[in-house]
């Protein structure tokens, strides 16, 4: 079975599940590249940190586009910064491009969303 290059674009804070979905493809022997757009980073739980590390172990990568990745990530968890132009060029080689979930919200979420 051919290994496919799959980019998963996450533009909305509610849809960081795209990273888990990427890991699901990585374990199926595909190359998964979740991309966090414009700073919509996930809450860095142990589960999320493990997922990001596993994607890298499976020869994929998690990118951040538009905002620099946090510098205080857990050990073994890497998020690579990438410009919009670089992302576009890399995605020209993609087999699949998945804009995941919904687009970015135009306002900051209210406090109720933090629970």
């Amino acid at each position, binding site marked *: 079975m051919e290994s496919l290059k799959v980019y998963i674009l996450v*533009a909305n804070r509610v849809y960081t599940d795209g990273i888990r979905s990427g890991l699901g493809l990585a374990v199926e022997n595909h190359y998964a590249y979740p991309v966090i*757009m*414009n700073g919509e980073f996930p809450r860095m739980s142990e589960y999320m940190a493990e997922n990001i590390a596993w994607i890298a172990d499976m020869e994929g990568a998690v990118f951040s586009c*538009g905002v620099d990745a946090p510098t205080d990530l857990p050990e073994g968890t890497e998020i690579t910064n990438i410009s*919009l*132009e670089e*992302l*576009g*060029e890399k*995605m*020209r080689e993609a087999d*699949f*491009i998945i*804009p995941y*979930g*919904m*687009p*970015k919200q135009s306002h900051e979420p209210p406090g109720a969303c933090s629970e």
Partner: protein
Amino acid sequence: MKILQVYRSEPTDDVKKLVEILNRDRVADEFKLYSDQPNYDTLVQKIFANDKTVCWW
């Protein structure tokens, strides 16, 4: 390479930039799903006529 860009909403500047790069030197087509009455038969024809489809948010 023939590529189809499908939009579920009006594309943002970031999406327009990515599409410009993806479409470069390729035969590109588009379909706007956010129109009032999208013609799904046309969309199916386009999907099967192109090598790749990207459906933006």
